[in-house]
């Protein structure tokens, strides 16, 4: 479709390029300064070094935080995806009173200041006499990740053709067999995508982890503590670069899985049966 005027269409790509520069500049700077042989993050660069990465290896505090982040991330992605599957399936498959209200409540964290979610959870947790721990971070981050899982999962479930399940049942497959052989292969990419996306969000999430952590910090909370010390910035940037690569890797896998599934089912090739 040709809606752009000649002058305009030359202007627009330039704008898009500028916008992408704006979007990616801060992210590209992390790796640049993490290999820079100086404690100060200023230009001109002072030569190449990997010493900031090496310094991470013996850093027990950081490694402990990384393990905490891993535990929290796995639990959050599992829990929020499981809860997301129930809700997304209910919403895409059944009509019931209060469906919109329920969906609205689950998606609400997207439209709330995060600090208010964090503060309210903190009050409840402390009022209930619970100790702050990794468990409280998991509970909080799951609330926060649910909307993202829901959007991935409802999109994946919406295209699902219900008659396939009915056909399978009519042909004598059990309910469980139908789920395993018909439903699961179709929705599996969305589920995997939801797991990866929520893990990535949990890994980077700071506010809830900051308010709800006890004595065991996650990586984000650890980084926050380190930012006060200017001299430690390069090693934090090195850590950030590693986390960045992990995030990008996970998101790319999620995207590839989702798109392959989309293509497979869009062309009508239910080849797995």
């Amino acid at each position: 479709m040709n809606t752009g005027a000649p002058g305009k269409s030359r202007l627009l790509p330039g704008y898009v390029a500028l916008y992408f520069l704006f979007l990616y500049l801060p992210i590209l700077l992390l790796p640049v300064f993490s290999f820079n042989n100086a404690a100060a993050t200023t230009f001109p660069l002072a030569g190449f070094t990997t010493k900031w990465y090496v310094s991470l290896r013996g850093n027990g505090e950081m490694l402990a935080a990384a393990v905490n982040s891993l535990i929290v991330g796995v639990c959050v992605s599992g829990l929020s995806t499981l809860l997301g599957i129930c809700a997304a399936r209910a919403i895409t498959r059944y009509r019931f009173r209060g469906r919109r209200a329920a969906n609205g409540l689950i998606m609400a964290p997207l439209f709330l200041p995060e600090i208010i979610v964090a503060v309210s959870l903190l009050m409840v947790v402390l009022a209930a006499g619970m100790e702050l721990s990794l468990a409280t971070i998991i509970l909080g981050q799951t609330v926060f990740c649910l909307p993202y899982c829901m959007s991935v999962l409802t999109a994946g479930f919406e295209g699902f053709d219900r008659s396939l399940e009915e056909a399978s049942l009519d042909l004598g497959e059990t309910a469980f067999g139908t789920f395993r052989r018909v439903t699961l292969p179709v929705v599996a990419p969305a589920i995997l995508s939801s797991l990866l996306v929520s893990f990535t969000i949990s890994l980077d999430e700071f506010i809830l982890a900051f308010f709800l952590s006890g004595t065991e910090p996650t990586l984000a909370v650890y980084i926050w503590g380190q930012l006060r010390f200017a001299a430690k910035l390069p090693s934090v940037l090195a850590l950030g670069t590693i986390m960045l690569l992990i995030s990008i890797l996970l998101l790319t896998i999620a995207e590839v899985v989702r798109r392959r599934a989309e293509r497979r089912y869009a062309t009508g090739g239910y080849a797995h049966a």
Partner: protein
Amino acid sequence: MAITASHAPAELAPPEPPRPRWSASEEASGLALISPTLLYAVSLLALPILIVFAYSFWSQDYLTIDRALTLENYRTALFEPMYQDLLGRSLVISLVVSLVTVAISYPIAWFISFHGGRHKNLWLFLITVPCWTSYLLRVMSWKVILGYQGVLNTGLMSAGITDQPIASLLYNSNAVVITLVHSWAAFAILPIFVSLEKIDRSLIEAARDLGDTRLMSFVRVVLPLSLPGIISALLIVMIPTVGDYVTPKLVGGKDGVMIATAIQAQFGKGANWPLGAALSVTTMIVVSAMAGLTVLALKLVVRKIR
């Protein structure tokens, strides 16, 4: 999964079913299936917010909470000059951030929707990647860019545009706005993109065939039809932004402090939960009102220029 639940009645039902039991109905299956998630959201989202609401009417004496209802916290939150300043600044910043984000993101959403071709998904992926990488480090990165000896200053100086570093780039409200606009870019692009995708392209052709210029067809067809996307983009940026904690702390300096810092203080050193609760509730209500007014104003403007 509840596959059998919806099937059984259909197979067993007599030709004129009296009225199927509610427990076997579609409604019951749906509610049963959503109940774990709903229960979770009610107990860890709705309930906590209600408790914040309750706390905001109580008062605190050292460590004991006095449950007699009082409006004292709201009086402090609304009339104490310090909180007035912080709330006012937070509102201005979130309004500016949401308007700027939507304005600069709209052309990108438009570009992807109308010129993205076969690679729309790839474009959207590239837009969302930066948003899902560590928020703390992105803010930190802006500190590196805008700092006195930062990337921007050294760049400007080596290009000969300035001969002295500009000190006013960092530690003020502008730095907060720039950083937040960057953080929320994808959240603005996605809803606008979705609403642009829904527009029936033949409507634009019709407007052009009937003699509208490109600009007029945009203003009279595309813009009004993408309004729902613009509105959700505004809301999804404006409301969370008002309570941002990290950005003002890292790049805001003294005159970029926002309300979240005051709220956090009440749960940390200040240790006045009821006041913290009242500040939270006030912030939510005021920002919702501002969001409502902005949406209303936007609708009026679009109707006018159409």
